[in-house]
């Protein structure tokens, strides 16, 4: 299983060489230096400000999302966590009027650089959304294979079967759905649907996985299943997760970034980022202390 994943990775990188040209040399050597990761990458944001038309949603965020670690973004509603997350794989610009300032680098390469295709960025930086959104017209199998069917060229059936099984196993869903792969994805429970969406995201072998409150629509048991999954997935991916659930951040993440806004109408800012334990026990900023201890927000 691992070997197969490895070969798939190489193939994807070969594809990337074609599309992004010279900049890749640095990228692949970076990958080789990583101890465990076969593709996890660092995302660095420098002085990122995000706008919806005239409204500034996020101001001057500089932070690093480390490979093979889970970085949690916490903070009160409306402070720009989700907006920031969506900027990382260029989903932000899909909103009409949305603009980006500053730099976001994926292993040193500017994802907003001239000549960078946002579609290519999104292939490398996958995303899981707040509410489970399997494609309603597709079966479970087709949902997982959607990324391959939509983007890769023709693929042998056996090869595709392999990817689907591997992804579903990766998302801890295989045992529950292996007998009904041809049934519609919308027939699953909420937690299963969300794991199906995670399987769909990892089937295209991204390097970074962004999760936007993936458990907010789920019950505690399903939440626990997703958190276990996140811990397993970090061996292979860089993971950033937005959450409103403080316990979840404490349980599942290695690093925590706290966002806050001075008052409504002002842009959100990054207050501080650090190892999760530090943020939750002895943060540097008073605002962080107040938030994690439940004094406000």
């Amino acid at each position: 299983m691992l070997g197969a994943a490895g070969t798939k990775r190489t193939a994807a990188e070969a594809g990337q060489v074609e599309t992004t040209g010279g900049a890749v040399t640095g990228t692949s050597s970076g990958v080789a230096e990583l101890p465990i990761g076969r593709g996890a990458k660092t995302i660095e944001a420098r002085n990122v400000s995000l706008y919806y038309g005239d409204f500034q949603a996020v101001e001057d965020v500089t932070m690093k999302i480390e490979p093979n670690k889970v970085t949690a973004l916490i903070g009160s509603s409306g402070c720009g966590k989700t907006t920031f997350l969506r900027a990382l794989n260029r989903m932000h610009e899909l909103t009409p009027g949305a603009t980006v300032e500053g730099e976001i680098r994926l292993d040193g390469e500017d994802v907003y650089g001239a000549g960078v295709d946002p579609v290519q960025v999104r292939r490398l930086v996958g995303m899981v959304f707040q509410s489970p959104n399997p494609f309603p017209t597709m079966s479970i199998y087709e949902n997982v294979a959607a990324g391959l069917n939509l983007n890769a060229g023709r693929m042998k059936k056996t090869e595709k079967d392999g990817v689907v099984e591997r992804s579903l196993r990766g998302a801890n869903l295989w045992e529950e759905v292996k007998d009904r792969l041809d049934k519609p994805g919308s027939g699953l429970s909420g937690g299963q649907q969300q794991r199906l969406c995670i399987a769909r995201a990892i089937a295209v072998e991204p390097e970074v996985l962004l999760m936007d409150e993936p458990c907010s629509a789920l019950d505690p048991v399903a939440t626990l299943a997703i958190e276990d999954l996140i811990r397993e997935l970090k061996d292979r991916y860089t993971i950033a997760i937005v959450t409103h659930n403080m316990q979840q951040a404490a349980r599942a993440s290695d690093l925590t970034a706290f966002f806050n806004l001075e008052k409504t109408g002002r842009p959100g800012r990054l207050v501080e980022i650090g190892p999760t334990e530090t943020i939750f026990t002895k943060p540097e900023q008073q605002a962080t202390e107040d938030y994690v201890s439940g004094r406000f927000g």
Partner: protein
Amino acid sequence: MAPPVEKQADPSGGALALASTGISGGVLPGWAPYGVVAGSALFAAAALLAAGSFSVGVMLLGAVLVACAVLYSWSRAVEGSRRAKDRVVTLAIAAAFGLAMIPLISLLYEVAKRGIPGLSVEFFTESARGVINGGGAAHAIMGTLVITGVAVLISVPIGIMAAIYLTEYGSGKLRRALTFFVDVMTGIPSIVAGLFAYALFEIFFGPGIRLGVMGSVALSVLMIPIVIRSAEEVLKIVPNHLREAAYALGTPKWKTIVKIVLPTAFAGLVTGVMLATARIIGETAPLLVTTGVIDSINSDPFDGRMQNLAVYAYNEYRSPGVMKQASYDRAWAAALTLIAIVMILNVVARLIYRRYKTETR
């Protein structure tokens, strides 16, 4: 502390009120509305007969008014004013529904009554070629199907692609302008569409040109805005999170539209097209000036005149010839056939919708 006390007192008060009026005393019996309506109808009929000027319309109107008054006062006395208003409004709505159904039912009944005598095997198999009086409408049925079919082939791609532009790509002034003109086009009188098609083909083929495809073009002018409108509505309700899910997998926009948005909206799109087809299939005026009148079967829209059911019915009625009644029968039979085709299209649209609709949140 006052509100909670009041709340506690409330249920017992309600129970007391119930007990004092008795359980059955508070509600009118189940037959009450029907009984009142029947009674009022009898009363209105008797009153009109006594006055010596009976007419069904006045009788029904009187019956509804009397029923409203009686039901209101009865219900108010027994159930209170809120239930009384509810009963009167329910009765008024039922009456309005009945009123709206009268023309529909009466039209279907009349067309069926007059159309069925004209139906025969000959009607569906024979053309009217070389027949002085009689013959069938096979050429008209064939023409209707061909002309409408070509119109659908022209309208569906243009209409759906325009709708895709409006929902997925368009923005700003151009989008608003297009929406405005689509709305204007929806209201174009059908004869204008016919004259437009005639003028267009006249440029290339000279005056007096009559072709089946001209009719199709005229019908397309009428059909395209309807298809755009319905397709736009259907594409709009495809949830945005599905598009985002596809984008997040690294799917280009065009592929997201083709593989995710359109399949999700498929049932709605087909229904919209079917209903638009049903809307244009009975058009008469634009076809009169574009496809002309002919008695023989012509299945080639690019070669000469072509008959269709609506124009056939019009002609049979306008110039009936010697055996007038037979001609009138054929006109009604053509109308009945047209209605049957429209009904079949509607039923098919519903079946397709039920079979392929996708649950979206």
